[in-house]
């Protein structure tokens, strides 16, 4: 083996192919491209929605038409043409499924390739999975166990039919239709997503999990998640996302709303691995997501994200700390490689007294990628004794990538305590040689160093997903040494 330089390291990183780039050949029911009021109505009709929902969508569509795309993020891309996208694509398995045996074997194969054989998960990991493939939720497991505790966990389309009072009350209450361009678009055309309600005082006995995947070419995925934790309840929720490799850019514009009522706690974890584009920067998913949670008195919301995919990421999972003594947390690892661009971070809005927030952001950039942290910490005049701690660390690999930090701090109350720390480091040849000398090859050494760097965040993931996330980090950054 010759001299292994940083150049080789970079090359090696760039040659890493996307592991989930397969396409499942199942018949799907897909709308022609384009967006207008008729399409919005058709989506609503397809899903058999009540009139109030159709109206809600149309209202959102009218708002969206008047809006323009935000341009402030530190990302460069060709804007998607919104009239060239098909806004609905559902696998053609029309029949309602009661058990996994009835699921299309092709679909089950896809799940297997994703490494989430549902049967296995059912038996081994005690995880309830609600899988959204393209746009329709296909299989919901563990429903019974959850029902016994009064927990509702179902596709949002079902919740609209069966729990309209909850949907009407909370949908759009945290992320209003007018919030931003992509949130408005999502409100108009969202196809499916998950709904979850934890009753008063109930601790959800298992991790709830949704697996999203974009399959059909030329479709956008607009899922909508609404999670309500009633007073004194607890839930841990995980979403994982993948998409097959495609040349064109696919659009993903999701909205997630969390409501933590008094004394409730929500832990929301994301492992995002949408197709990042190839090594020339062609294709990949545009991931424009609005995620926000509201904390009432003594409530806590904790966002944990491991972001390794997507060509463009625009995402700021946020907490509105409305109630006194409420707590918001944001733990993030974002990896960009090749030509990926990520502009991600959080907003912590302190409204109540004694509110506390923690932000730990770890950005890893390789190849020609750009990775930006953008975060807002806002202390309102009424929020006495608010506290925030922010830490933003960047790790660079090679000299063609960039790491950027945009912290915004707005303090309007003198009693606030704000701390911000930031570091930037590089994986050095010295570190690699040290590992090599101890018998650890370069590939393994990078994995070790990266996992060490992201440890504080990885530790926050639910046990059964932490291992998967670690593997994903390794996959995203390594090729086979050779």
């Amino acid at each position, binding site marked *: 083996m010759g001299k292994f330089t940083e150049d080789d390291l970079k090359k090696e990183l760039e040659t890493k192919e996307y592991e989930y780039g397969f396409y499942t050949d199942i018949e799907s029911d897909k709308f022609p491209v384009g967006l207008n009021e008729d399409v919005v109505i058709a989506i609503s009709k397809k899903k058999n929605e009540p009139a109030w929902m159709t109206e809600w969508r149309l209202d959102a569509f009218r708002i969206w038409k008047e809006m323009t795309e935000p341009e402030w993020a530190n990302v460069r891309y060709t804007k998607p043409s919104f009239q060239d996208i098909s806004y609905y694509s559902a696998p053609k398995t029309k029949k309602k499924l009661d058990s996994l045996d009835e699921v299309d074997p092709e679909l089950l194969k896809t799940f297997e390739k994703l490494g989430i054989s549902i049967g296995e998960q059912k038996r081994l990991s005690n995880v309830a999975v609600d899988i959204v493939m393209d746009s329709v939720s296909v299989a919901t497991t563990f429903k019974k166990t959850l029902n016994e505790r009064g927990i509702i966990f179902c596709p949002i389309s079902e919740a609209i039919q069966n729990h309209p009072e909850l949907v009407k009350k909370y949908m759009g209450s945290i992320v209003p239709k007018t919030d931003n361009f992509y949130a408005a678009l999502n409100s108009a055309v969202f196809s499916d997503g998950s709904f979850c309600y934890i009753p008063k005082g109930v601790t959800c006995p298992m991790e709830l999990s949704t697996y999203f995947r974009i399959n059909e070419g030329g479709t956008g995925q607009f899922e909508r998640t609404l999670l309500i934790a009633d007073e004194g309840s607890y839930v841990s929720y995980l979403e994982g996302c993948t998409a097959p490799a495609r040349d064109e850019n696919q659009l993903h514009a999701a909205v997630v709303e969390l409501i933590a009522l008094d004394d409730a706690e929500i832990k929301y974890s994301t492992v995002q691995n949408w197709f990042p584009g190839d090594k020339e920067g062609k294709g990949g998913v545009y991931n424009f997501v609005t995620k926000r949670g509201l904390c009432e008195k003594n409530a806590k919301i904790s966002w944990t994200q491991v972001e390794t995919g997507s060509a463009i990421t625009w995402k700021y999972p946020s907490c509105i700390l409305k109630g006194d003594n409420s707590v918001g947390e944001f733990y993030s690892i974002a990896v960009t490689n090749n030509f990926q661009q990520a502009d991600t971070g959080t907003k912590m809005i302190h409204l109540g007294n004694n509110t506390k927030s923690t932000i730990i952001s770890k950005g890893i950039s390789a190849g020609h990628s750009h990775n930006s942290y953008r975060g807002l910490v806002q202390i309102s005049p009424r929020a006495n004794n608010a506290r925030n701690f922010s830490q933003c660390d960047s790790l660079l690999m090679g000299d063609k990538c960039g790491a950027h930090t945009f912290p915004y701090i707005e303090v309007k109350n003198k009693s606030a305590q704000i701390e911000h720390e930031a570091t930037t480091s590089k994986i050095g040849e010295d570190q690699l*040689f040290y590992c*090599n000398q101890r018998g*650890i*090859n370069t590939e*393994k050494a990078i994995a*070790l*160093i990266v996992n060490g760097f992201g440890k504080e965040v990885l530790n926050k993931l639910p046990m059964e997903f932490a291992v998967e996330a670690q593997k994903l980090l390794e996959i995203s950054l390594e090729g086979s040494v050779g």
Partner: protein
Amino acid sequence: MLKINNLHANINGKEILKGINLEIKAGEVHAIMGPNGSGKSTLAAVIAGKEDFEVTEGSVELNGEDLSDFAPEVRAHKGVFLSFQYPIEIPGVTVTNFIKTAINETRKAKGIAELPAKEMLQLIREKADLLEIDRKFLSRSLNEGFSGGEKKRNEIFQMAMLEPQLAILDETDSGLDIDALKVVANGVNKLKSEKNAVLLITHYQRLLDYIIPDFVHVLHNGKIVKSGGKELAYELEEKGYDWLK
């Protein structure tokens, strides 16, 4: 065990090693001494396979096998260990996790199954006790915020865990107070056997009071200019290096 023949090495086109010849047999302790810039650390790095250096002539053989074409990790798998003069920090990776990975990667390379967690833990405890290392130390991030003494002790701990055939200790005594030096030297002495060999690289004779060498070599300007027994170290301490130039 180790045989170095007419070794020449460059960095950025500048020749640092200018024809080194050295043979170390199993069970022996050799010391290489010399003034700053004589090429001591370069020699250590070249044996370990650091790729910043270009070997232009000569060879390094371990047990009759030429190491030149082997990557550093392969040399490590074959039993070469280098205790670094300036051990590197790896934040977030614990001492335990690091050594566990090192051992299992070495086993993997040799086609042996991973060491079961229980045995690993036992081994770690045993070696930590040998070197008077506090258990709490084992869960700290590798070399991050370690004192000079802690870093060096950690190097010797890793050596104890990996049980190399050839241990090269590069300026292990620098930055150590006398108590730490005794602990480290004591550890090295306990690990010494008929089957392995030690190459000490040092500036001062001080370390050699505690680890007694069988041979002492003086390196000057990229060449070994004098070799002798342990008494040579005392002579150097007394007269300095100038008389050899």
